[in-house]
């Protein structure tokens, strides 16, 4: 075995060990690496409900209600949803049916009191005409189903 083969082996072996160690660390910290929890995880008791945490999902269609300075809405992952109450400025992209991440505390009554609301954008980029065409197509599909 030549010296350079030995060195290459040492480098590759070292990298494999390093990747293994990193994978173990990341999987150990998995719960702390997520930015938000889904409403289903909250219902299953997997979220740290005792302290401030974040929930994420879609803003449920038709759920936004304004009551003075307070905004009520529901965050859903289609399986479960959580009612949220919030006071403060909302980002421009905060809309019904769009993604949002809210930070705050879950009350005993099951209502989540948010201190911060962030809009979560999806990975789709399209011109308004294309969006319009998709909306029209969905409407047509719904009418056909009815």
């Amino acid at each position, binding site marked *: 075995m030549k010296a*350079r083969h030995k060195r290459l082996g040492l480098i590759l072996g070292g990298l494999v060990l390093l990747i293994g160690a990193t994978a173990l660390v990341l999987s150990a910290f998995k719960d702390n690496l997520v*930015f938000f929890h889904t409403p289903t995880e909250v219902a299953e008791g997997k979220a740290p409900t005792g302290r401030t945490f974040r929930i994420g999902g879609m803003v449920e269609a038709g759920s936004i209600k304004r009551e003075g300075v307070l905004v009520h809405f529901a965050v859903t992952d289609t399986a479960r949803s959580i009612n949220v109450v919030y006071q403060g400025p909302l980002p421009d992209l905060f809309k019904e049916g769009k993604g949002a991440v809210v930070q705050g505390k879950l009350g005993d009554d099951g209502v989540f009191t948010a201190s911060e609301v962030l809009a979560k954008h999806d990975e789709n*980029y399209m011109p308004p005409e294309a969006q319009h065409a998709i909306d029209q197509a969905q409407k047509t599909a719904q009418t056909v189903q009815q």
Partner: protein
Amino acid sequence: MNSTESRFNLFHYAAPQAFYPIAGKLAPLFAAIALLLTLAGLWIGFFQAPTDAVQGEVYRVIFIHVPAAWMSMFVFLVMAFWSAVGLTLNTRLSALMAQALAPTGAMFCFVALWTGALWGRPTWGAYWVWDARLTSQLLLLFLYLGYMALVAAIDDPRRRDKAGAILCLVGAVNVPIIYFSVKWWNTLHQGASVSLTKAPSMASIMLSGMLVMALAAWAYTIAVALYRVRVLILERERHTDWVRGELANIGEVH
């Protein structure tokens, strides 16, 4: 007999003295390509691509943000590759290549973070959040800066190259973490719009503007790295006769 001859040829251009003139020829070529592609990409991005349906005009940051972010990750992998080559084969040029690439990678990493923050405020409602994507990308910037500081701090060239190479290889583990962070964990940052495994979720004119800008970033990186590696070669080999001759030719030695 044959094998030694072919190996000799392969290693010929790995000698700094042989690579120096080639780099000098290629660098202006790639600089010109970079300039043309940047102009074309920005023209598509700002004048041809339509407004985004949801985000409005602010989405146009992707024409800089995404190529910069891709490049910041890719450059680190290339540095790790040269580091592995240098450690294995003891070639002098490899470490210089890695050192020549580092400032450009750091620049792109900073640009990605900075444009991302400017986009995040109007879109998410926050300049910065500590989600896995943003945090691992910030770690990449620190790895770049740490690499440059480490390399600058060691006087002995052989030790400098070795220490830098090891930091590079260790830091490269972070790159797949950045790339897959949006898949492995819930993040505020959206998933990839363009990847090898699925059709791009983006209008084609927007996509082409972004890809032209990505190619421009490649050409820019190659050009700047070649210019920089020429300087590093001259510095490293300054006691040799060929560098003295080279410098005498361009009138640097009085």
